[in-house]
């Protein structure tokens, strides 16, 4: 199993631990990753500005992966949704496809729609499989309650992103439960984190974040878990900022899914970057089952 790893702009600067944790977990599960240095912006930030610029930006990434004959694995849900959308638009609209390919041809590139764009969670669930993951888990969690945050751009529009059932998804919950943790029921599970409005309408953005945090707290979750750059920044960096500024601390730290999974697979916590989160999550180690005693004669 081999994928071109697409990190996007934010992970290498602001969430390095998401990258290192993902690499470590995927290596354990025999998923081979190829780095393509020429990858550029996924196109997401351009969507408000100019449709064609967004599609072109996405298409260049798709074309680069296609040139290497590799499917793409995306860590960020906004990046995933954007690349899927661009892929869809290019297939749907012949004129747009021609325009994009004419520009790409200047660099000797073209995109013919021959690759698949996958999110890390769907790779884990569909390509690796719950059974294989389960075998790798050495110390499952006990009594740990996790609020699973799905993220809008992986779920919707479902006919285009094709991640899971948009109304009653279960993919992420199953991935959480295989670690031994309980994926709690919470009413705002499928709602937006507020991230896309950060910087445009901060007040509204934080309304969303706080509502979700309060709900996760109500449901008794110890931690939130995410599989997206923007959601993680919102629930980690922004939650910390709000806690300091407004004094409204809901105390639901957010852990990236590869960190959650990696820890119970016995991967070194430094590799997983457990110390790199803004809000301390090291307490999660306390939920791990006791280490199996070394067999003595």
């Amino acid at each position, binding site marked *: 199993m081999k994928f071109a790893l697409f990190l996007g*702009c934010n992970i290498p600067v602001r969430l390095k631990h998401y990258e290192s944790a993902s690499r470590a977990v995927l290596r354990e599960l025999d998923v081979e990753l190829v780095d393509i240095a020429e990858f*550029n912006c996924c196109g997401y930030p351009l969507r408000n*500005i100019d449709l064609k610029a967004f599609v072109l930006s996405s298409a260049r990434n798709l074309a680069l992966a296609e040139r290497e004959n590799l499917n793409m694995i995306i860590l960020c849900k906004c990046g995933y949704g954007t690349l899927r959308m661009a892929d869809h638009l290019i297939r749907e*609209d012949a004129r747009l496809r021609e325009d994009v390919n004419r520009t790409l041809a200047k660099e000797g590139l073209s995109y013919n729609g021959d690759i698949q764009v996958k999110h890390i969670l769907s790779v884990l669930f569909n390509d690796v499989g719950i059974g294989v993951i389960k075998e790798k888990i050495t110390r499952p969690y006990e009594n740990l309650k996790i609020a699973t945050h799905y993220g809008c*751009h992986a779920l*919707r*529009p479902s006919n285009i992103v094709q991640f899971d059932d948009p109304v009653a998804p279960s993919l992420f919950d199953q991935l959480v439960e295989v670690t031994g943790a309980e994926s709690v029921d919470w009413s705002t599970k499928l709602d937006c984190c*507020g991230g896309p409005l950060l910087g*445009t*309408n901060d007040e509204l953005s934080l309304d969303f974040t706080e509502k979700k945090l309060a709900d996760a707290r109500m449901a008794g979750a110890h931690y939130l878990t995410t599989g997206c750059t923007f959601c993680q920044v919102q629930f980690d960096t922004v939650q910390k900022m709000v806690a300091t500024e407004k004094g409204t601390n809901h105390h639901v730290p957010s852990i990236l899914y590869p960190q959650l999974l990696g820890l119970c697979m016995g991967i070194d916590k430094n590799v997983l970057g457990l110390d790199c989160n803004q809000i301390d999550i090291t307490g999660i180690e306390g939920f791990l089952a006791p280490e199996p005693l070394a067999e003595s004669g």
Partner: protein
Amino acid sequence: MLYTITLYTSLAIFVAGLIYRISNWFRYSIGTDAADITASTRASAAVGGITSTIFSAKIGILLKVFLLDVLLQAWLLKKDFLRWLAHICIYGGFMLLLLMHGLDKFITSVVFDNYYSTLNPFMFLRDFFGLVVIVGVGIAIYRRLLSKGPRPQSTGVDYYAIIILAVIMISGVILEGTKIVSNSRYQEMVDEYAGLDEEETEDLMALGAYWVQKFGVVSRDIKGPFDKNTLQQGKQLHEMSCAECHSRPQWAFMGYGASRVMSPMASLLDRANIHTLLWYIHFLACFFGLAYLPFSKFFHIFSTPVYLLANAVKKEGKSDPANMATLRAIEMDACTHCGDCTTRCSVAVAFNEISNPNILPHEKLAAFRRLLSGRGLSKKTLMAIQEGSYICTDCHRCTDVCPIGINLEDLWLNLKAHLAELGYTKPEAWAREAIGAEFNLVKLKDKTLSLTPVDKGFVGELTGSAQASTFSVCFGCQNCTNVCPVVGNYENPKEMVGLLPHEIMHCLALKHKELALGSKMLWDCVTCYVCQEHCPQGVRVTDVLYQLKNLALKHLKEKAA
């Protein structure tokens, strides 16, 4: 006369330009911590900083940086050998030409008693250094032709400097060639140095024959073949009067090559006094280049070494904030416009669709410099810088790749802060207010809307794409509005966001541009796609809103133009 006047004029402009550019380093205020420090405080802090650095152990670092990074440009060698070779050839060759040939009165003739520009090794070296520059330019052109991928733009500023350099080099070589073949030039020299009277025709013929034969002079009266005795006699005369100052012109291989090409029309060129004309072109181009230097790309000859040295000894958090502010200002000038940042830029690809050069980091830096210079920029220009600044995803790649280590990421954050002070915030937040003010929905509150189509062309822009044209199948069930979490967040959503999602779809059916673009709902849409997911008619509600945002920003851009 003309020589002296232009020399001193251009020198004066050069010095004034240098002072002006350097004064900018103390005047440009980048970052909030720089705002309260005056230019004079910064200047005295710089003097203090330089003095204390020179008389400390850090002098070792400075010397090392000067040798490795300034003179030998090790940083470039690490990146790319060919590029280093091109740069070191151009810069090294030109510097040596300047020192040995351009400033020969002040340097070479002082150091070497026997200096004559027409004597070896100087005669050979002049052409050799020239060749080195030409080889460097050749490599640079070769690299450019060979490279693929998005190319950084070259602007006028880049070309002017290169054109001046080319004029200096080419006029120099041709001038040398015309002087070699010039008979009148030869006669002048004979009159002055040979000590022969006009009556001594035999000697004059012999010397002439020798110079025609061996030195490439083209004469109408003296033509070969010559007999051995005449040449022997010429050689003796030459050794007596000329050899002290003249090596064989073949050593000046480029000028000699040019002279061979010109020899068939040498008499014509000589009568037209072409070598005088070329001499004017040559020195005027040099002086023009000198005067233009502080205002051109070549100012980096000064600014980049200063930056490399200062950056090597600064200590983040420890150095005097006044000096840190100055260092940031020097970064503005230290940029050589090489375009590495743009080649690596994550969003440069967007430039193919959005023709705003401020998307490209090396152009954005130049725009920041214009902004700092205090020249009043138009609204259109400011909006273009704003757009470029916010398309940037702060991915840090430009900073990682800058060959001289400019902290570009830091500059971009400061640029955004600077723009915000002028009222140009994130385009989405900015547009939310700007377009709301233009298409004021409140005014329409009590009016009955006209049902005649208001702007057909506007809807045409939407029906051009498969996703946006889906608004036309909306049957007004209001599902989108009912499931919208933004609407649900407010007790009085209409007051907060203007039109609700289903109303916007309705406006499009009515072709009502002002209403559709003026609603704050566009900018408050969190893009969660819940509406689109729940639309029973398959209207791509979120995607329609995305495209309305595109149109609104385009509208604001066109309005500012």
